[in-house]
């Protein structure tokens, strides 16, 4: 369960060293787009040595280079260890996810890992939208991240502030993730100076069923955490519903009412999820 995931360039020591000082739920250390082709080797060695020296108290995700490049195997060999939690795979497709699972299993066995590395595929191709259910149920997958910039390029459409061009992709990802109980992670908002735009974009994503959002600047984390956390009022109401449910059970009632409104199973389940989230994020 995540709300905010902060991208950090993999070849920048100053930023790596500050990776955990902001309040994101996860950090995505980037070996792909944030690193020039001539510096792939140095970024790999820097990230490996950084992670061997410092244990981050949050989820560590590594965005490797795509499996259509010459770099991904060296990335995996260098950084798969007990120091990381998850691989973020660009331009994901079902065939590559099966191959990635096999490679990870071999490295885990060879290096004696005590954990199983998770995978978050990036949905950033039109074909990935069509394959999204298969991708969501691929081995190790515990979330999907929408990559709207590359997806828009693939669709040959312009990105807009309103985001109409990614409405279907957001909905498809959100529905698939809910169906398979994994995280639906929204695309980053790329104008780091536009707080109002970020707020509106996050609200729109949440309204469609996304439960987290990637961030490309530390300044975005507070807004994203706020939007993707249950509000104080929602938590209080969930607690009231669960208390009333507990009382109804004692009295042997299947259905009961609260504030004049009928409370049934879906409402109780939603209240439980709200409380789970509130506990997970330290809000109660």
């Amino acid at each position: 369960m995540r709300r905010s995931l902060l991208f950090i360039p993999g070849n920048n020591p100053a930023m790596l060293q500050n990776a955990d000082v902001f309040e994101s739920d996860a950090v995505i250390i980037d070996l792909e787009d944030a690193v020039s082709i001539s510096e792939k080797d140095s970024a790999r060695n820097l990230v490996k040595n950084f992670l061997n020296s410092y244990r981050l108290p949050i989820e560590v995700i590594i965005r490797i280079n795509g499996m259509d490049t010459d770099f991904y195997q060296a990335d995996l060999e260098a950084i798969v260890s007990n120091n990381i939690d998850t691989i973020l795979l660009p331009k994901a497709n079902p065939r590559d996810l099966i191959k990635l699972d096999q490679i990870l299993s071999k490295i885990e066995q060879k290096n004696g890992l005590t954990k199983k590395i998770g995978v978050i595929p990036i949905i950033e191709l039109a074909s990935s939208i069509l394959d999204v259910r298969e991708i969501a149920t691929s081995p190790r997958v515990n979330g999907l991240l929408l990559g709207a910039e590359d997806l828009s390029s693939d669709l040959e459409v312009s990105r807009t502030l309103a985001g109409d061009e990614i409405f279907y992709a957001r909905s498809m990802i959100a529905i698939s993730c809910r169906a398979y109980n994994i995280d639906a992670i929204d695309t980053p908002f790329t104008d780091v100076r536009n707080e109002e735009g970020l707020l509106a974009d996050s609200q729109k994503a949440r309204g469609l069923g996304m439960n987290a959002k990637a961030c490309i600047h530390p300044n975005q984390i507070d807004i994203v955490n706020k939007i993707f956390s249950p509000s104080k009022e929602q938590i209080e109401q969930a607690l009231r519903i669960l208390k009333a449910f507990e009382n109804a059970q004692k009295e042997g009632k299947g259905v009961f009412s609260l504030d004049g409104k009928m409370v049934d199973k879906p409402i109780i389940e939603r209240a439980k999820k709200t409380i789970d989230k509130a506990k997970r994020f330290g809000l109660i």
Partner: protein
Amino acid sequence: MKIGTCGSVESNDCLITVKESSGITIHLESIVKEYFGKQIIKVIEDTLKELNITDVEVTCIDKGALDYTIRARLITAIERMNKNA
């Protein structure tokens, strides 16, 4: 002559250049040399020892890099030097 270089002169980083040489020579330029010069030299020496490198000249221009950065930049510089063979 085989040469390899890695890093930058940005804050918290270091720029390391290695040249094939006879024996080990280390040149250090650092904004914190007075306080951490010995530690930086030790990180370079320990990393070379781990890599079984006995003949190299290392120049490190340090801008406040932590040990892991010095180590990583040196390893990459050596790898690049060997690729330039």
